[in-house]
């Protein structure tokens, strides 16, 4: 009798503490999620602020005067529209090329078919651990391959990704060997086996790799900075990096980042509008990206 009573007391105590803990957890998750979203909303709203008011009053949660000038300037700016188009082009072509070459290598090294596969695995794996560094790479691209100021520099040096290759190879390895062997026995060539059996079975994996590859092309700016002299060939992200650096340099020179007086081009709000415009495609693709999150779990699986 006494014992069940203490047990009951313990239980209610536990329930109360568990409830409080759960409430704290819900609160934490809500706060963090809101904090993750807030900067996007803030920048989005501020991009609709009136430039002159923004200059006078500084940034506010809700601007006191709205204007769509920044967005009008954005859509009227040849520079930004051209960079947008160029970046889309690079992303589409680069992703297709990279996924094909990466998938080909992943298939070749999957299973136990190749006698020398361990040698090649090691050769590929080593490059993830050791590299020649930026300078010899830069010399290779500019002096030996003559890719400076050539649009191919966006595609060719990114046409293969070792990390993705290993991820994809592990997916391929999970396909039952017997399936591949029976196709081979039926007289199917390696190419037919690869394209008719292995690839259709790994579409989710390929989609994952494709989406992440596309994202890395979309977010690329170092290539523009290092290898492009012609401003016309800058990617969208590099335009952005230059915008930030201009602000930083301006405030460093003792001026405020916000120039005083009336400005003809809404420089500050235009910057914000551009930032929002670059993440547009990501937001659109996000639901698809999210479906394949699980692929991110396989990070630990890149073993030789």
């Amino acid at each position, binding site marked *: 009798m006494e014992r069940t009573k203490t047990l009951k007391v313990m239980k209610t105590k536990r329930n109360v503490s568990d409830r409080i803990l759960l409430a704290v*957890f819900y609160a934490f998750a809500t706060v963090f*999620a809101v904090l993750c*979203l807030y900067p996007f909303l803030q920048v989005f709203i501020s991009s609709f602020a009136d430039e002159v008011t923004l200059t006078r009053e500084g940034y506010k949660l809700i601007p006191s005067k709205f204007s769509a000038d920044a967005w009008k300037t954005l859509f009227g700016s040849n520079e930004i529209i051209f960079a947008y188009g160029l970046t889309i082009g690079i992303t589409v072509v680069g992703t297709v090329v990279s996924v094909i*070459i990466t998938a080909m290598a992943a*298939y*070749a090294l999957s299973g136990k078919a*190749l006698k020398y596969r361990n040698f090649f695995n090691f050769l590929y794996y080593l490059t993830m651990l050791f590299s020649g560094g930026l300078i010899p790479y830069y010399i290779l691209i500019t002096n030996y391959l003559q890719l400076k100021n050539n649009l191919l520099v966006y595609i060719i040096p990114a046409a293969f990704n070792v990390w993705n290759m290993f991820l994809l190879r592990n997916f391929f390895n999970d396909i039952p060997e017997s399936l591949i062997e029976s196709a081979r026995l039926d007289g199917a060539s390696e190419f037919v086996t690869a394209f008719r059996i292995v690839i259709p079975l790994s579409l989710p994996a390929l989609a994952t790799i494709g989406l992440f590859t596309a994202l890395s092309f979309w977010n690329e700016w170092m290539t523009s900075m290092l290898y492009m002299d012609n401003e016309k060939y800058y990617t969208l992200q590099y335009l*952005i990096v230059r915008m930030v*650096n201009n602000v930083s340099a301006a405030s460093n020179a003792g001026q405020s980042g916000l120039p005083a007086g009336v400005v003809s081009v809404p420089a500050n709000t235009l910057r*914000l509008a551009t930032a929002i415009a670059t993440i547009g495609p990501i937001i659109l693709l996000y639901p698809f990206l999210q479906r394949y999150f699980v692929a991110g779990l396989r990070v630990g699986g890149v073993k030789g």
Partner: protein
Amino acid sequence: MTKTTAGFNKKSFISKLKKNDFVKNRGRYVLLLPSIIFMTVFAYIPMIGIVISFQNYDPVAGFFGSPWIGIENFKFFFEGSEWLQVTLNTLYLNALFIITGTVMSIVIAVIMSELKSKMFTRTTQTLMTLPNFVSWATIALFSVAFFESRGIVNAVITAVGGESVSFYSNPDVWVGVFVIIRAWKGSGWGAIIYMAAILSIDKEIYEAAKIDGANKLRCIFKITLPLIKNMVVLMTIMAIGGIFRGDFGMIYPFVGDNSMLYPTTDVIDTYVFRALRSFTNYGRAAAVGLYQSVMGFVLVIFANKLAKRYAPESAMF
């Protein structure tokens, strides 16, 4: 296996040829070829090209025609004081990133896996992982609205009676700023891997603990955390392997060429980049790169040794 005893035997030559892997699996080798060419050109030739760090590099003469000068380039780098600063900055920033990132990710993972409402979990997780997909360049541009002299952060600081901070000329604030922004951007995504580890824990263990009268907090500290320890060790070891690599992609968009911020934010990678741009002497810049690569490689080996000792199943090779 037939052995040819004397002279050339056509039959056995053909059968030998058929047994050769490159002939037998030619289809696969053809598929492998583009990536072999790629790796040779873009990974192994630069590795060979690192010899220029021992040369007075002459662009016309190339990787092997330039005069050799021994370790002069390294002397130049190590005799200055900057090497120590950029090395310490790199290690300090990365160590802070690893610690805060890991702690935040684990906290989020534990919390998210305790939540009951599916709908709520999915929505918050969507929001938490969103920043991970946005580039550092875009986030740096976002940050202008927050860090400018009249940006949001300063508006908040002055509203609560503080003195406004001029972010772009004050190097001291940037360590904290980077740590916070990085946790904001990456920990929601980083939590996913730990959530998967937590999901794979046997539910019966929790049931048993509950019957024994353990409350939630106790379960978290006595069951959840000990059981994801291996995953934490693995991820940390992988991160330690990369600790010599400064995150150029993050730092440059924020700092750019603003030399006032260098004291805390200049890492090996930004230093090498500037060396590339300003030195006419590529050999000297390459020497810094080689120093970084070698140190990084040594650390990977070291991290792997650690892995073998403390979490054998997480060793990479």
